[in-house]
């Protein structure tokens, strides 16, 4: 990974500002698509919540709360004793957990998206452009990654690493680059034969320059498309892993909240205020990623639009 990052900045050096412009320009943010705008708006809302979590939250999300000394503030209904969304059965503030949960969700989601998109893009670029033995090796690796059942893999990984939200990111980085890698490779294969790439090659540009200057900008939207899907995958996976009991017990996430709620029989206790909000937050953020990716599809494959 550090190598890849270095390569980008190296080529960008002569005029790094124009490089940034070019990257943004080549992103083709799908700002005409109403879904995509909705998706982006959801992201912005959650990012704001995550940044200002400590101000929005009314309590420390892990603190055991007492009404008076030795009287645990457990199972409070929303609004009761000033708890916005009530408290858990072990006396933690639900609203504050929800707010802090957006931090881990975005942290996991965005990192995983970045890792998956970066690895997938690099693999696709290198395999597609250089071809030959490199291509064969990378694509066989992709075959193997396709043969690994993802969720079971995360479970096994989580079992022997210390429980941490980063396990999900690690597992995604190890396995889920496969889709991105394959798609980008085939895109690169068609781009490679384009006239301007040929021209650059004839004029003596280095491979590195051709890849990152002429090809990469054209596939960046594709990377973003897969990245925005990966955000959702990461958050859903973290939730599933938490539900099965392999989650990080020290980090408040929405998956952790749901797991806590189910383990405390919140359904039987009709504590809807406890297990509905985290579920809705997950749906919102994951769906937002899908909306954006859909917006991208319409930009990339305009025939659907008409």
């Amino acid at each position, binding site marked *: 990974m550090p190598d890849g990052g270095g390569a980008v900045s190296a080529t960008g050096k002569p005029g790094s500002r124009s490089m940034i412009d070019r990257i943004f320009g080549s992103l083709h943010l799908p700002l005409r698509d109403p879904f995509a705008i909705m998706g982006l708006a959801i992201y912005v809302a959650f990012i704001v919540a995550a940044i200002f979590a400590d101000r929005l939250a009314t309590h420390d999300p892990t603190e*055991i709360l*007492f009404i008076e000394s*030795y*009287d*645990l503030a*457990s199972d409070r209904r929303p609004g009761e004793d000033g708890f916005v969304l009530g408290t858990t*059965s*072990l*006396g933690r503030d639900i609203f504050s957990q929800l707010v802090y949960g957006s931090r881990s969700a975005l942290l996991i989601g965005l990192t995983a998206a970045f890792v998956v998109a970066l690895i997938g893009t690099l693999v696709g670029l290198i395999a597609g452009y250089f071809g030959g033995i490199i291509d064969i090796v990378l694509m066989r690796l992709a075959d193997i990654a396709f043969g690994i059942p993802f969720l079971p893999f995360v479970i096994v990984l989580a*079992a022997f690493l*210390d*429980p941490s939200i980063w396990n999900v990111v690690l597992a995604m980085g190890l396995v889920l680059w496969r889709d991105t890698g394959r798609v980008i490779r085939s895109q690169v294969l068609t781009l490679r034969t384009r006239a301007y790439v040929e021209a650059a090659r004839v004029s003596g540009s280095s491979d590195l320059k051709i890849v990152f200057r002429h090809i990469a900008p054209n596939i960046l939207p594709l990377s973003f498309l897969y990245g925005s899907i990966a955000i959702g995958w990461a958050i859903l996976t973290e939730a599933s892993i*938490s539900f099965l*009991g392999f*989650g990080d*017990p*020290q980090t408040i996430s929405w998956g952790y909240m749901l*797991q*806590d709620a*189910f*383990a*405390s*029989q919140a*359904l*039987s*206790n009709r504590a809807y205020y406890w297990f509905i909000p985290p579920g809705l937050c997950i749906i919102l953020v994951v769906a937002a990623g899908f909306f954006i990716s859909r917006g991208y599809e319409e930009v990339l494959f305009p025939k659907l639009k008409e």
Partner: protein
Amino acid sequence: MRDVFQTAAAAALLVTGGVSSVLAAGDKIRGFSIVSRPQAAQPAEFQFVNIIAQEWRKLGIDVEVDVMPWEQMADLVWYNRDKWDVTGWQMVGRPERSDPDELIYNLYHSSTAPKGYNFLGYINPKYDQVVEAQRVETDADKRQALLNQAQAILAEDQPALMLVHPKSTFAFDKTIWDASTAVDQGGIGIKNTWTFISLAPLGDQQDIILNSSDNIQAINPLFISGGTDSWITELVWDRLLRIGPDGLPRPWAAESYEWTGATTIEVTLRDGMRWHDGQPVTAEDVKFSFEAAMGDEAPMYKPFVSNIAAIDTDGNKITFTLSKPSASFTTSSLAKLNLIPKHIWEPVLTDLASKDENAETYQEENPVGSGPYRFASWTTNEEVVLEANEGHWSAPKAERWVLRIVPNTEAALGMLRSGEINFLSDFPGDARILLNAAEEDGDLEVVSTVDIGFRYLAFNNRRQPFDNPAFRRALSFAINRDLIVGAAFKGFAVKSNSVISPALPFWHNAAIVEFETGTDLAKRILDDAGYEVIDGKLHYPNGVKETLGD
């Protein structure tokens, strides 16, 4: 060998630690962590560990909570005995723990410190002496006095911070089962063999349908496997004695038994018993059952028969001769071993003797016992069905006993209300919610019983700063047990200061349970022992060096 030196060193420190109380302060006490299992698996433990950490910080100690799953915790605490500081732990109630010996001896006798149950490394020669004496004392009153003394020593030394004896809570549908026929076994609760035999149906539903969140590991009379498995083995196989609802052993397959000397006990076998395949149960079968455990093919049962020197049969009488007197022999041996048919197991054991495997890996296709229920079917990870053995002298009132595997607690509760199960035999969840559900539903009977088992926080007595009893006392007395009962167990527990539960009233030392607690008291104890608070951090008494560092 290393362990021996370590425990010796710990014992030496124990002596020096108590006496120093001079003016200038020693080193700052290093920060340490309390090990807990995750909230998901053990909400109450996670909760009390966090509360205790909050309370201890008030004394000027840096305390962290270290959460890890059970396998890691067991590996650390059990197999790396000098590597941890404080851990949440529990002893579960089992019928054979109705005799106090197993807990009071194994948990704190110095001989079990290197590898056995005394994992926290408590060494006290005086204590050893007392618990050894109660072991061979067959006079109940004298034994009671010795056990009271042992409990008092532990209360003084506080090798561990005893918290609570939880209440086991179970429920059943009282429109299906006659509520008066459920038997509440002291320290165990209504989920027990006596209930499964006597529970009487009121209507057409004649099957006891119960739940377990754990899968069945094995149905094997020579293998002590998962906790749920033992519900089945207790019903399919008879034992000479059984632990009664009062916690004391009573004759079962034995018609009667009698101590004929300090080390000999004569058992008379009940007449007319038959194995589920129709063969008669004989004294030879009984002898064979015990000898099977004395051999090498059933290692988990071996400790329970190691005291047997000889077994003789004469007609329907079996005489056990012991190597040394044992107060708990009836409970821990006669009421523990399953009676197995010689005609089935003899060829199996002979065959196994020539192999690497032992009887623990042998799963009978169709298990045969002589118990009140006989095996009918087993569907992997789904259910086990037993049928009433009508020919048994204590035949069950129910027709079948169906154990369903339900990994999801929420689903188990829902199933109880919808009638998919009618006996909630495994409920690790919030008992208050169960009570609320029962109130709404109207059909459910919920019974809570104080457990023989207990939850506690073990100090690693081998390691500084926990090698000093004063320090342990201070940490222990800082914690209000009522707070733990309320905030971690939702009131479904009683506070504890002894390894012998109030569920065993004859052996339990009630005098040591009530004591004052609080941060101020803890500070006073520390102050008296020479500990000092400097810049908000607790320091050792003068001259004491921190040997382990941060």
